[in-house]
């Protein structure tokens, strides 16, 4: 009917504040010129508000729109039609709308888009701060709506803020119920994902120096919680990729080994792993890596989710991991894999660089093999070589030249795990033993507050797998031969004082791990973050069922909708009770109540008020029948009529007083007469109180 009237001035400030708040977290993702344009438009709107500028003309508007839109498209052309471009266009649309926002309808559109922008923030980040930010944003947007609909003296900042906060807080119980109980549905169609930023973590290539550079980072890689007892530290090998192609300097995934996700999904390789004993089940929440593989302990079995296992027992996802990912695995610590080594795999595990300049190493390998009884003995001799020769385990290894294996084994002898793993596999292959490099993480820090293990980037590790007839692939960690404490206690224990360790993390809580209370605080904060991710961010169908089974027992699935309806109704009723209660006691105003009491007294005297009889008619009748009461009856009636219907009488405190006095004396007279006549019970008078 009247959606078109003007915007209350205060509402505009609220909307601008809400919009700024909503755009704030995503600001750094915007290209600089778009950011400037957005701030410029908001500033312009403020100037219009202050009366210092006018609304843009049609020409200016057209100019802005028709330059900004093609430029945005150009900006994002290289990245394709992605989410980032869409978000940019949406933000631009909202700020342009600001400039022509004159009527209530326009402002409501902006407000509704502000809600959508709040949601878009979650595509990029779902941390606790972004959750709190969203609640704050919703409160401010609600404040804008309140301010828009309240055009009176109470429309000031404090009142609006209080009402908005009240509304949001009151909605929280119902929100929680809906969050827990509304059935979660699988995605309806695939959506464009944010363009990945740079990848993090272990990569699918290994050149000497790659993994030691990860040692400089104290960023979290993933968190694991075990069902039951966690395996001991030296068994926590988080297996990532198998690197089996060596070009003389760098280890790669061999191209043909890597089957893309769809292929593996369609033609799963038959399970060639033979598990033994009991598996350990665990739950991993992985930080985004922008890569397509995940980590688990050999020999892993995928229990749920969109993860597949390739023929090298590596685990892959369909799309790069841009959000925290939660998955569940079961692993056997005792197993045999590939008891029959297919020819293709065998030749890949024996591949040597075409132009091999590591002649010294090849000679050493042949020498050691000649002295060994069998392949197993040879492996032992090689490990002993690492242990007995002056090899050093360091985070800052010297740079290596062309013949990297020779240089490492015979000259520098200082290296990180990739040096040891690479040279070890080379020594194996040089004498015809199938071997390959595996990269991943090793170890982790136990957090006792939420019972889980944190694995950091500096836990990145490389080791080797060697194939034996009748055994399959066997894991060897040559680093352990050089620095056994690395395996038993962890990399932190070895490198705590070495320059470079965690150096890239800047000011990090990790630096204070020696200070007891700070370390406790750090673990506690991480535990909160972990719980948030485990119970809130990764809350899905499975977790929902798990939770409901705890509550309702077996048939949780069927009682889900029932519980949803009941709890919604219950919360609504409670809110309704507290908001809408009261009221019935003061149904009539005091004057009417007094007058009705008088009428009741008169009725007891035999003069009841007839239905539909107005006060004036009643007064005339009473006066005629009881002349002795006429005068005071008339003054009471006149005062009553004035109080209820009079021009200035309504709300006049003086009249009210007068009425009360006159009424009281009249009623006393009526009552005394009635009592004399024995007609009335005294209780009638007390009814007024």
């Amino acid at each position: 009917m009247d959606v078109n009237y003007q915007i209350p001035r205060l509402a505009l400030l609220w909307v601008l504040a809400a919009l700024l708040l909503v755009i704030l977290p995503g600001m750094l993702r915007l290209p600089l010129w778009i950011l400037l344009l957005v701030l410029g438009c908001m500033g312009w709107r403020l100037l219009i508000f202050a009366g210092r500028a006018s609304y843009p003309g049609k020409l200016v508007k057209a100019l802005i729109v028709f330059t900004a839109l093609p430029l945005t498209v150009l900006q994002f052309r290289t990245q394709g039609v992605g989410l980032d471009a869409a978000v940019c266009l949406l933000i631009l649309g909202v700020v342009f709308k600001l400039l022509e926002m004159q009527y209530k309808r326009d402002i409501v559109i902006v407000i509704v888009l502000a809600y959508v922008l709040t949601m878009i923030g979650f595509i990029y980040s779902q941390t606790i701060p972004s959750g709190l930010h969203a609640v704050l944003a919703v409160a401010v947007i609600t404040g804008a709506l309140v301010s828009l609909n309240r055009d009176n003296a109470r429309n000031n900042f404090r009142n609006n803020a209080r009402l908005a906060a009240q509304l949001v807080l009151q909605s929280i119980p119902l929100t929680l119920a809906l969050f827990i109980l509304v059935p979660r549905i699988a995605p309806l169609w695939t959506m464009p994902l944010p363009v990945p930023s740079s990848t993090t973590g272990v990569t699918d290539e290994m050149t000497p120096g790659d993994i030691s550079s990860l040692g400089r980072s104290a960023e979290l890689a993933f968190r694991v919680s075990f069902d039951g007892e966690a395996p001991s530290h030296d068994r926590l090998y988080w297996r990532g990729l198998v690197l089996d192609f060596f070009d003389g300097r760098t280890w790669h995934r061999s191209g043909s080994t890597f089957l893309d996700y769809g292929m593996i999904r369609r033609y799963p390789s038959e399970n060639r792993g033979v598990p033994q004993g009991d598996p350990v089940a665990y739950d991993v929440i992985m930080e985004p890596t922008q890569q397509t593989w995940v980590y688990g302990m050999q020999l892993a079995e995928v229990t749920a989710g969109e993860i597949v296992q390739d023929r090298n027992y590596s685990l892959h996802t369909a799309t790069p991991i841009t959000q925290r990912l939660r998955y569940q695995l079961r692993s056997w610590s005792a197993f045999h894999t590939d008891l029959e080594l297919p020819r293709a795999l065998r030749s890949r595990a024996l591949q040597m660089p075409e132009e091999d300049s590591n002649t010294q190493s090849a000679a050493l390998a042949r020498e050691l093999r000649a002295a060994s009884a069998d392949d197993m003995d040879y492996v032992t001799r090689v490990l002993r070589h690492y242990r007995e020769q002056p090899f050093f385990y360091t985070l800052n290894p010297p740079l290596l030249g062309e013949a990297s294996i020779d240089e490492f084994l015979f000259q520098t002898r200082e290296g990180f795990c990739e040096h040891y793993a690479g040279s070890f596999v080379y020594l194996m292959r040089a004498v015809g033993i199938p071997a390959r490099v595996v990269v991943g993480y090793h170890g982790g820090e136990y957090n006792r507050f939420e019972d889980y293990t944190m694995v950091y980037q500096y836990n990145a590790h490389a080791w080797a797998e060697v194939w034996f007839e009748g055994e399959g692939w066997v894991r060897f960690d040559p680093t352990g031969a050089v620095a056994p404490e690395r395996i038993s206690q962890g990399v932190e224990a070895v490198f705590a004082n070495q320059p470079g360790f965690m150096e890239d993390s800047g000011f990090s809580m990790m630096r204070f791990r020696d200070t007891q209370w700070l370390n406790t605080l750090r673990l506690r904060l991480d535990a909160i973050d972990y719980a948030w991710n485990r119970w809130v961010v990764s809350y899905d169908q499975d977790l929902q069922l798990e939770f409901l089974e705890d509550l309702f027992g077996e048939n949780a699935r069927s009682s889900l909708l029932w519980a949803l309806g009941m709890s919604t109704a219950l919360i609504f009723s409670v809110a309704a009770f507290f908001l809408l209660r009261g009221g019935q006691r003061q149904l009539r105003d005091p004057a009417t109540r007094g007058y009705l009491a008088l009428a009741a007294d008169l009725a007891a005297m035999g003069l009841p008020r007839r239905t539909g009889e107005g006060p004036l008619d009643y007064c005339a009748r009473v006066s005629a029948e009881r002349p002795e009461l006429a005068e005071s009856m008339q003054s009471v009636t006149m005062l009553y009529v004035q109080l209820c219907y009079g021009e200035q009488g309504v709300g006049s405190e003086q009249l009210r007083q007068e009425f009360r006095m006159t009424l009281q004396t009249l009623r006393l007279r009526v009552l005394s007469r009635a009592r004399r006549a024995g007609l009335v019970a005294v209780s009638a008078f007390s009814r007024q109180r």
Partner: protein
Amino acid sequence: MFSEPTMSPVNTVSFWFSKRVQRWLARNVPAVSTATLHRRNIFILPTAHGLLYVAATTLIFITAINYVLSLAFGLAFLMVSLFILCILHTFRNLQHLTVKGIGGDSVFAGEEASFTVLLQRQSGRMHEALELSFPKGLLTRADLIEGAQLRVNVYLQTKHRGVLKAPRLLVQTRFPLGLWRAWSMLDLDMCCLVYPTPVACSLPEAVSHSGGGKGSSTQPGGDDFHGLRNFQPGDSLKQVAWKNLARGQGLKVKQFVDSSDDRFMLDWAMFAGFDAEGRLSRLCYWVLKLARSDVDYGLNIPGVVIQPGRGDAHRHRLLSALALWQQLQHIESATGDAL
């Protein structure tokens, strides 16, 4: 006189529907002079803005499903909760509000009738951003925040003379978020008298005076200057002889009528040639004009004869007689086109 709804199928349906609504309201929200708003007479539905909000919530929900964003689910649920909670708050903004119909002042047809209602609140309740209106009438905004009560005028365009029974008063609010509209349709049993529209005209040559039909060619209020007399309280300032006052001759009033016979009878027959409404309008004009002059005037229309007199009450009697002439049977019709 009263335009019947044209009977196209759509109009027939909406007419039937509005009849049904009226009947339902009459049964469930009966006419009373004082109505307190409560569960049974407050209605509530989402507004257009509310539907836009629901659309945004749906968009967020679908995005949450497709991107598997747990927190976006949370946001959508928070918005749903706010939406649902807003029902209670909007309802609460009307609940326990007492609306008392005080009545309307008499107006001339074509003017806006002003009905006064009294809004009363209970302690602890505030009623913000209230909108009161009659169907197709002007919107009156009110906020009952401080003080126990508030007088509010609500306006209604009048069309025909007669008794105007106020249609159902719409009391509505969109507070606090504008997502829901709570309203009540109250029949506060208010009436006002609508006088005929005055139509300016001159009197015909043959005019009748009372007092045995003594003929006189002097027209009351005409342009012929008759003389001066002393000013009396109640005389119109327009007729004060300012020039004489300036000459120091005291406060005099110009007289335009024969002072020897200032009893003037307005007669139905004066405006022969016009239809009934036309006659009433012209009589009305002359009643007003004579009320400002210095004559006793009376009225003689079929079925009603009012002896000459003067004063506000007398004027009101004459105007009422004009307003109600052959009108009593139409009182109910005024409510017919409500909603």
